[in-house]
């Protein structure tokens, strides 16, 4: 909305003036500005010196690093462990192929509507449903003559992504069902859903992981071993589903009663009403909550180190137990932090674009 006043240059402040007022408009502002500038002056140059100008970029040994700067040689020496853990080198192409397919699928899912000739929905649906099986066959092996790589060799960024992606993709549908169940008119369904959600939300993730890795095997008959990664995946998914259920319930409750009644009045069945009228609106409302649950799930996967798995963060700890590299955990942690930031920030940017899309619902 523009008014005649805004267009009048006499009243319009220049950008410089706006900045000046924000920074030095009052005595307090001036003091704060100068203090912050000083703080930046004190911290930024030494940090840049350490991380970039005096850092050691080239070499193959810890002795190629001097102590005045960061030793990025660490990353180049251990990159394979950092990305893939102890996955055998000669089978690495399988993981590369797997992540390539994942990226293609993800791009297709996100961008297919912008293509001039949109991809057929059925193709997308089929490839999305097929992908987990193809990925599993590639990662674990045992099919098409691929050697089996047991999950104890999985590690690094790869393991982190496996746990996060499985957790995210299974927790959403599960959480949806739980949220609907919690509003069900059938008492037994409702009680079961409330009990489930409150039980899983009432314990910290680390407890779930300990139950999965330490307690669960003791309940099993001796000699029966369920793969430890599978136990963790089930635990993480159920845990995340409980949170997801509550987020989606928030969305469901925000939909005015009239929508439910109108849907019913037009003769739609419960499921039709839910999937065509209520859920599309409810979920659009809670996208920020859903995405931040995903983001915190990605970060919480690092807890698996405590039960003896080498996730992206844990592998730094592991590689730095080599006596030559024992001093260089800092570089590893910074690298891991950066990668985590990139992943989580992209997710949150993507959620912004989803929110801004005009509601394309009925």
């Amino acid at each position, binding site marked *: 909305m523009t008014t005649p006043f805004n267009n009048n240059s006499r009243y319009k402040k220049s950008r410089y003036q706006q900045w000046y007022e924000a920074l030095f408009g009052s005595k307090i502002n001036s003091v704060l500005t100068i203090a912050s500038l000083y703080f930046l002056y004190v911290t930024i140059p030494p940090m840049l010196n350490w991380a970039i100008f005096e850092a050691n970029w080239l070499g193959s040994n810890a002795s190629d690093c001097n102590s005045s700067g960061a030793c990025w040689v660490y990353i180049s*020496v*251990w990159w*394979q*462990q950092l990305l893939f853990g*102890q996955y055998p080198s000669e089978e690495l192409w399988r993981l590369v192929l797997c992540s390539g397919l994942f990226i293609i699928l993800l791009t297709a899912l996100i961008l297919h509507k912008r293509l001039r000739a949109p991809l057929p929905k059925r193709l997308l649906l089929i490839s999305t449903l097929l992908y987990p099986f193809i990925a599993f066959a590639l990662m674990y092996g045992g099919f098409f003559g691929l050697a089996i790589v*047991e999950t*104890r060799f999985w590690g690094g960024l790869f393991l982190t992504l496996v746990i996060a992606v499985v957790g995210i993709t299974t927790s959403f549908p599960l959480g949806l069902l739980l949220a609907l169940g919690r509003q069900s008119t059938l008492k037994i369904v409702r009680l079961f859903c409330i009990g489930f959600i409150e039980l899983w939300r009432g314990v910290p993730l680390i407890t779930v992981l*300990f139950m999965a*890795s*330490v307690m669960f*095997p*003791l309940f*099993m*008959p*001796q*000699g029966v*071993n369920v793969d*430890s990664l599978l136990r963790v995946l089930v635990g993480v998914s159920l845990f995340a589903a409980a949170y997801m259920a509550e987020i989606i319930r928030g969305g469901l409750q925000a939909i005015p009663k009239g929508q439910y009644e109108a849907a019913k009045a037009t003769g739609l069945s419960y499921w039709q009403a839910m999937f065509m009228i209520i859920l599309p609106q409810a979920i659009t409302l809670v996208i920020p909550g859903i995405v931040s649950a995903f983001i915190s799930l990605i970060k919480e996967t690092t807890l698996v*180190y*405590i*039960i*003896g*798995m*080498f996730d992206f963060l*844990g592998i730094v*700890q*592991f*590689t*730095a*137990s*080599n*006596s*030559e590299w*024992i*001093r260089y*955990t800092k570089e590893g942690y910074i690298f891991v932090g950066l990668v985590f930031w990139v992943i989580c920030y992209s997710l949150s940017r993507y959620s912004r674009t989803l929110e801004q899309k005009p509601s394309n619902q009925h």
Partner: protein
Amino acid sequence: MRTITASFLFSASLLLMPTAFASTLDTVKDRGSVKCGVTNGLTGFSNPDKQGNWEGMDVDVCRAIAAAVLGDASKVTYVPTSSKTRFTALQTGEIDILSRVTTWTLSRDSKLGLNFAGVNLYDGQGFMVRKDLGIKSAKELNGASICMNTGTSTETNIADFFSANNLNYKTVLFEKSSEVASAYDLGRCDVYTSDKSGLAAQRLKMQKPDDHIILEETISKEPLGPAVRHGDDEWFDVVKWSLMALIEAEELAITQSNIDTFKNTKNPRIARFLGTSGENGKNLKLAPEWSANIIKAVGNYGEIYARNVGEKSQLKIPRGLNKLWSDGGILYAIPLH
């Protein structure tokens, strides 16, 4: 109703029935690999080498057993365990042997259902302090704040030592050794306590390793050794005598490099060790050359020690108690015959 109850009880009894493990030795032979529980990264004991393969004192025990049972030291599946998951992993059969800087105690040997097969390192809890504090003895530590790990015997030892000497202290607890070390290095506490072997490793991480000293006192006995499950004596024997063979080889001065020069030996002990006479292998249900295979793969005890934690490593822990009995230590091989 009665049938329902009866069938419920029947299925419950099926679940609770103790299903005996198949013999671990046979399982390992069939599987073709030893599943060995190690740490998730501890310098000198189980850590990755430059190629990312496992190496270290505890890893060499695993390799020795694989060499003895399967004739090939590379046939080990390493299972990283944390200090919380290690015992469950052994109890549930996820691993065949726990070789993870684990202290041999009565309660672990009995109540936890473990059998310790021996000691591969006599360690003990010590203290590290800054040199400039001028402290010479742990008895001067009154009022100190002490950084340590949770969930190990470290806490109990500290409590015992300080109350026995009427000293006050404050604990600062962490889950991981790296956190303890960095907290100490940053000055969040005055003292860092842990097993001396661990202190030696963490000292390398300090900003200035030379600014720190490890005090003379050792306030605990920490005999570290590999453990197996209760109730499988055959496997227990294999692990126990594999450890013995490492020490026996050092007593006989048999090393990885000179073992082939003893082929025509007249010494009956050496001949038994090489498997050219006697029935050691048969008695353990192993190949006659089982002990020779161990030495060819990993060397004798002295070589393992030097390579991983001793003078040839960065840790440089003096051998101390871990010398042979004939050199003033307490290592003593029970006769192999």
